[in-house]
């Protein structure tokens, strides 16, 4: 008797958690539900798109899972979801640098047959190209980003200084208008993370150098251009320089808050800053100017291409509907719905001349030419390793642990190792 009761208890205890696992099977029967992970702060702006999509395709709905805001956290969540291969997400909202890795792993569905020349021509070519891995299209751009130089137009005008186009002018402007520690000359992202790589690449290209040539996999980090570029960063935050020493721990938000509080003359950042810095209550509202990143020669520099796109998970059980959502999300109307309230830069070319969007965000008109000269980060499957190698040695040089030459020589050597037995 007792024994039987014990057995029953044991079996019950094992069975109890099981029914909960099958809870949402029935929901699919009514119609198709697509799932996608989006950052929590963007979800409110995705909801109108989800609604307009299910209006356009009755019976299909889009479920938006709230994910963490930091990119690297969402990268690992996305990775683990795709790795399990159970089709937890039908759609993948992915950063520009994830495409090669996720495509090489075989987790994304090629989209070549779904989107022909006509559709592709509607999108910004640089942003579209970032979705191509080994000749196949895996990702459509949804919103784009590009590195920019913000400057305090009021301060420059008062001092009679023209907006800086070269690195020398930038240093000169920053030095003349700064009064540290209350107001610094130049802010940038120097923490050990992807943002530092984005900024460094702009400086590197501005000095005529390169990081990795995607075709030949040649590494250019131990060339004199790279040393000059890194020397510029190190000089900027050295004592008596134009950037606060803490810049080596700053990410986008720290720099934006300082700049928005009127505590810097120049800022390297992304388009999102414009809208926030022009808001009521910002100390710099109406006092901003924006420029392409500088170069040695003064020709407009090439900002690093960022941005987010959409892909279809290979494990999705509803690929046709997922592709339909990609088409829907990259329509002019959807881009308007999403970009007008957020201030994000759209991926469609015609969105940059759309009256409704321009009314919401006049700054877009200035962005299009800057986008046209943007540089993508190298399309290699082991991008994350290569980026981490660079991040570690750049921050080591900034912290004075390595000289610029040592840091770049080591970074070049390790990058070649990473790419050496790269697939």
């Amino acid at each position, binding site marked *: 008797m*007792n*024994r039987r009761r*014990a*057995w029953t*208890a*044991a079996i019950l*205890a*094992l069975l109890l958690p099981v029914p909960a696992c099958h809870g949402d099977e029935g929901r699919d029967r009514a119609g198709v539900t697509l799932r996608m992970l989006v950052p929590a702060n963007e979800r409110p702006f995705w909801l109108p798109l989800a609604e307009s999509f299910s209006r356009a395709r009755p019976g299909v709905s889009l479920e938006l899972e709230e994910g963490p805001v930091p990119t*690297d956290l969402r*990268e*690992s969540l996305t*990775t*683990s979801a795709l*790795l399990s291969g159970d089709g937890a997400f039908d759609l993948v909202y992915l950063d520009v640098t994830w495409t090669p*890795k996720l495509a*090489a*792993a*075989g987790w994304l569905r090629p989209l070549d047959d779904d989107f022909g020349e006509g559709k592709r021509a509607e999108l910004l070519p640089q942003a579209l190209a970032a979705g191509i891995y080994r000749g196949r299209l895996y990702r459509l751009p949804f919103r784009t980003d590009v590195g920019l130089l913000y400057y305090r137009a009021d301060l420059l005008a008062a001092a009679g200084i023209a907006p800086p186009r070269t690195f020398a002018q930038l240093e000169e402007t920053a030095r003349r208008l700064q009064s540290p*520690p209350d107001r610094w000359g130049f802010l940038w992202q*120097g*923490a*050990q*993370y992807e943002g530092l790589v984005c900024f460094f690449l702009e400086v590197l290209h501005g000095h005529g150098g390169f990081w990795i040539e995607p075709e030949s996999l040649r590494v250019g980090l131990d060339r004199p251009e790279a040393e000059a570029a890194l020397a510029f960063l190190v000089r900027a935050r050295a004592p008596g320089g134009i950037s*606060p*020493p*803490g*810049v*080596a*721990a700053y990410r986008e938000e*720290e720099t934006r*808050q*300082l700049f928005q509080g009127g*505590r810097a003359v120049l800022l390297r950042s992304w388009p999102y800053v414009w809208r926030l810095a022009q808001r009521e209550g910002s100390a710099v509202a109406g006092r901003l100017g924006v420029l392409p990143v500088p170069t040695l020669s003064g020709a407009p520099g090439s900002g690093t291409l960022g941005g987010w796109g959409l892909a279809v998970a290979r494990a999705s059980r509803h690929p046709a509907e997922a592709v339909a959502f990609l088409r829907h999300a990259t329509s002019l109307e959807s881009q308007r719905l999403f970009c007008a309230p957020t201030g994000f830069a759209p991926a469609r070319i015609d969105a940059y001349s759309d009256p409704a969007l321009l009314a919401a965000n006049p700054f877009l008109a200035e962005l299009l030419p800057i986008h046209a000269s943007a540089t993508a980060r190298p399309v290699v*499957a*082991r991008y*994350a*390793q290569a980026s*981490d190698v660079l*991040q*570690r*040695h750049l*921050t*080591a*040089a*900034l*912290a004075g*642990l*390595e000289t610029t030459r040592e840091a770049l020589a080591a970074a070049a050597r390790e990058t070649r190792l990473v790419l050496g037995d790269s*697939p």
Partner: protein
Amino acid sequence: MTGSLARRARHERVLLLLPVVLLLALVVGVPALRVVLLGFTRTELADGVVSSWAGLATHARTFADGRFLSALRNTAVFTSLSVSLEVTLGMALALLLDRSFRGRGALRAVVLVPWALPTSVMALAWAWIFHDTFGMANDLLSRLGLIEAPVAWLARPATAMAALVVADAWKTTPFVALILLAGLQAVPSEVLEAARVDGAGSWQRFRRITLPLLVPSLVVATLFRSIQAWGAFDIVYVMTGGGPGGSTETLSLYAFQSWFRYLDFGYGAAIAVQGMLVALLLAAVVVKLASRRETA
């Protein structure tokens, strides 16, 4: 008769334990075993994620990997600094809370607040405290006249590590204090009273009576904290991301990066397993030292 009763009771015990054992085997045992096995393979991103048996080759990679060695060193530095700081402060706090004074109950509750906060939340707050421009640390120190120019705490290797240790100590000292407080309350007051009557001073009473009786609690607290600190991930991930220049990267952080960013699953597993082996060794040493002391 009694024999069969005892056997039945034993059977029943086994049966009642079975669900828990099975559940633990399922959620802890199987994944752990899988990680150990994965460490003997080469499982990584190629054309798709490919896997092949590698024996000890994946484990051998760590010996030539400067980043692994630096992560091992950082983990050891972080663990030894934070645990010794926490045990010292925890002891002081426990002794304070053991005395009777007005508002002791409330203070005992308040002290636990840091421990109750999610680590990532408090790490974010500490990252702001150590912010060079807006941070409280610089403000306070410059008001006290201890520093002239703001210190970029998280941008320099030594100060970044110090910031991590301070934040970790803030968070986990209450835990140590709680365990030691429980130990203190088990110290018989008659013995202390007798020592006082015999003319022992307060330091002598602490050194000769309280401390020896507290050894089991100290071992438990040190062991728990060492193992936790050895696996530190969230606090580092949020406060420094392992920077600057990898000077605060811990083993857990490196293993995590290998898995989720590099899709180098075999090597990530090897890092985790080797880290675990060192942690087990550490625990064994602590237990051994403590038991020797106790028997001596």
